[in-house]
């Protein structure tokens, strides 16, 4: 698997180039902040009409990651939908999602954009403890072995910013996986405050690459 390998509370994890997290021992694939339905939500609220292809784009990437890893569990870390009404994806995309769900465990963690169950199969949870790890939407100060999303971390190295994983001894924060998502500079508060000394940023892109979060650049 072409990814950056690291251990968190004894679990061996891989930060994949796509922005997904792979836990090989449990055959578990975790993704953060899909924000499905963002373009239709903006349109519904009278905003601009963005290219309506981000659901296909995001599901396409997820499909490829699932095929490549052979994941038995897929865990979405919250803000999977841009709002609860966005879970009404339309026929084609619902079928696509159903096909992805077939034959594997699927967990929706709730986020601030989708704070409640949606009319889709899968388990709907606030958070989930699994072995040494805890999966939740927003990182909690002081937590250990925690996997979360929410912040959309990004970092700039030798060019425009790219989404990145943030990893330290007690947590990993995933980049946003959805196509239409912005980012927050990982080197500035609140992200820099949240991460402990020795934290690593792992940039997504053709070859994932790790570098120190803090210190001179």
């Amino acid at each position, binding site marked *: 698997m072409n990814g950056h390998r690291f251990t968190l509370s004894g679990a061996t994890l891989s930060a994949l180039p796509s922005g997904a997290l792979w836990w090989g021992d449990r055959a578990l694939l975790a993704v953060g902040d899909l924000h499905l339905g963002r373009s239709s939500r903006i349109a519904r609220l*009278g905003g*601009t009409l*963005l*290219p309506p*292809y981000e659901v296909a*784009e995001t599901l396409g990437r997820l499909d490829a990651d699932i095929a490549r890893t052979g994941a038995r569990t897929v865990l979405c870390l919250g803000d999977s939908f841009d709002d609860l009404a966005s879970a009404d994806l339309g026929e084609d995309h619902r079928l696509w999602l159903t096909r992805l769900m077939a034959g594997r465990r699927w967990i929706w963690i709730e986020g601030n954009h989708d704070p409640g169950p949606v009319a889709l199969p899968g388990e709907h949870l606030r958070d989930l403890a699994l072995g040494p790890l805890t999966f939740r939407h927003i990182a909690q100060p002081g937590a250990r072995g925690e996997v979360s999303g929410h912040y959309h971390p990004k970092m700039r190295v030798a060019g425009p910013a790219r989404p990145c994983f943030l990893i330290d001894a007690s947590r990993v924060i995933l980049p946003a996986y959805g196509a239409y998502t912005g980012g927050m500079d990982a080197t500035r508060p609140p992200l820099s405050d949240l991460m402990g000394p020795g934290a690593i940023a792992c940039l997504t892109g*053709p070859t994932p690459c790790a570098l120190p979060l803090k210190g001179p650049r």
Partner: protein
Amino acid sequence: MRALPPAFDDWFSRRGWQVHPHQQAMLDRAGAPALLLVAPTGGGKTLAGFLPSLAELADGAHRGLHTLYISPLKALAADIRRNLTTPVTEMDLPIRIEDRTGDTSHTKRQRQRADPPHILLTTPESLALLLSYEDAPRIFAGLSRVIVDEIHALSESKRGDQLMLCLSRLSRLCPNLRRVGLSATVEDPAAIARFLARHPDPCEVLHADPGPDPDIAMLQTDEPPPWAGGGGRYAIPAILEEVRRHRTTLIFHNTRAQAEIFFHHLWLANEDGLPIGIHHGSLSREARERVEAAMVQGALRAVVCTGSLDLGIDWGDVDLVIQVGAPKNVKRLVQRIGRANHRYNAPSKALLVPANRFEVVECQAALRAVRDHDLDGEPRGPGPRDVLCQHILIAACAAPFDADDLFAEVTSAGPYSGLARPDFDACLEFCATGGYALRAYDRWQRLMRRGGLWSLRDPRSARAIRMNIGTITDAELLKVRLRNRLGGQPLGEVEEGFAASLTPGDTFLIGGQIVRYEGLRDLTVEVSRDPGRDPKVAVFSGTKFSTSTRLTERILAMFGEATWPDLPGHTADWLALQRQVSRLPGADRLLIESFPADGREHLCIYGFAGRNAQQTLGLLVTRRMEDLGLHPLGFVATDYATLIWGLDPVPDARTLLDPAALAEGLDTWLQGNAVMKRTFRNIAQIAGLIERNHPGQRKSGRQATFSTDVLYDTLRRHDPGHLLLAVTREEAMRGLVDFARIAAMLDRVGDRIDHLHLTRVTPLAAPLFLEHGKVPVEGAARERLIAETAARLMAEAGLA
């Protein structure tokens, strides 16, 4: 001859003035539906435009708005209001004159809507906003004349296209509206007349006496100009000497960054402590206003400036204009020269300062062009469709509309007179549904058709549309402020990309000061003063112009001459040496040189197609070389040549320049290109696909938004036929990619390509080795750079 009311005659004679012939001509033809006045700077142009309005309003009978004056600059609107108020007060005319710009207070703007003045001075954007209001028909009732100032400048940009769409709307509201354009000297007044007039109305062109020819020369310096680079630092002693000898000097530079560096070094050399200021578009309004005020008071001996002083405001006592760097465009040079002796019938005095050896040739060519009154200009294409999309949204904000009516209105605007109905329909479709192949928004259309009329589905969206009116799309800019005090003193703006490259402790130049980067807070770059260190140079979003086709033709013609008595000895010798060891490029042939240097094989293509096109040529040719296994490593482009280096020699450059193959390469290359993405971002903003400003939400950095690059990539993959991609391609091909000039060059030379194989660097190619802006070819370069940086930092941090 139409006589002025007696009060006017008295006023003119009290001042010892006479009505200029062109001012009288404007009065005589005041009833014409459209008039264009072409007059040199300082020719009483503005008064000529207003005299008919003042005469018509003198009896106090008119109710409501009579004349709308549009200027490209807010400052100009305010300046004109002050200038007009003088005669109106002195003649005691019952005329109310007000300006309205982005700086006008909310209360005043509300009152202007309720009770418009007789004469309203405003900008294209403020006019578009006024037209978006439901009560626009009432606001503009009675409007009789519209005056477009500096129309030569507006006609070169999308601001002008938007303004003409607004005028078509005004003409519909006020069918007898008369249009007046005021222009500086231009190469093709008829084109501007067509741009201005309501299609197909005629538009008469009036020419004011152009005045005496300017007194213009190249600045003689003891030290010859350097081989490459810009900025003209070598000439500082000679320029200071000229400043001493004149009352007030304007020193023009082509870019803001060059103006900053030059000002910094000029100041260091300014031992007499002459009062000299700096003025460019990236400085804070406060900083610019200070310099402007000092100028008006005559307190400054010189101002280092850029195109921000190209327009408008009357500086009075300027007696010398210095242009540093080749002018790139003769028309702009002539307009700049006009800033000196801003008085009727006095010759303007100007000096050209070539920044490097090649620019000596370019300046000489420009001098000849000025003497021959040979102005240049690239014809503009038809009115761009992104601006039309915005206009459709604005129309929907004002009132429900009928598509046929709007089409008729739009095609009465000069730039859109050739618009085909299917293109209009595609723009309307884009505004209504997004225009996507996947019809995802049938439920959430932005515009809906009800009872035959188009209107906003959600009336609340009008607010967001109004907040995003306008066609000026600067790069993301961050304000720069001095830390210390509460809020801190604003200094100016820098590009976001530049700000991101700074780490605390870095120093850079802004407004002539060296400042130290302290940090970023609330989207503001905080700095402290830090004199005496070697500064970086901020990246400003000023436009870089390519040398015009006409000027290039003149340069090539000069190369054909046997000797160059007009050129300084150092430059004539340099050209003679080039002719001896190789050849000089010619107008109907393409010169290509191959030679080894620094252990690399080099290929130099003298296309003379302008910087953008030479850059594109570099990208395309290196791609072809890559395909042919010729291992290119990088290239650099200037206005006249592209220099490519690589591991293998190129046996026959002709194979690289097959037009069909280049055009095909262009298609592939364009796809993911940064130039295209930048162009797309501007178009997406103008067309209303993305919003710069959102109601009730102060833009909180980039967290909330996502990059338009994502939208561009998504569209390209899923909807390659989309309207905005077509518009992007069209615009890039004319502008930043400039493929048309490559095609024209290849077409002109045909098979007359001279590929010379030489043993060493030639005199003409040598300066290219010193150029900045080298482009590496490897696509994998960035990946490698990231990996190397990461490995180093991990090792340094002890984390590897």
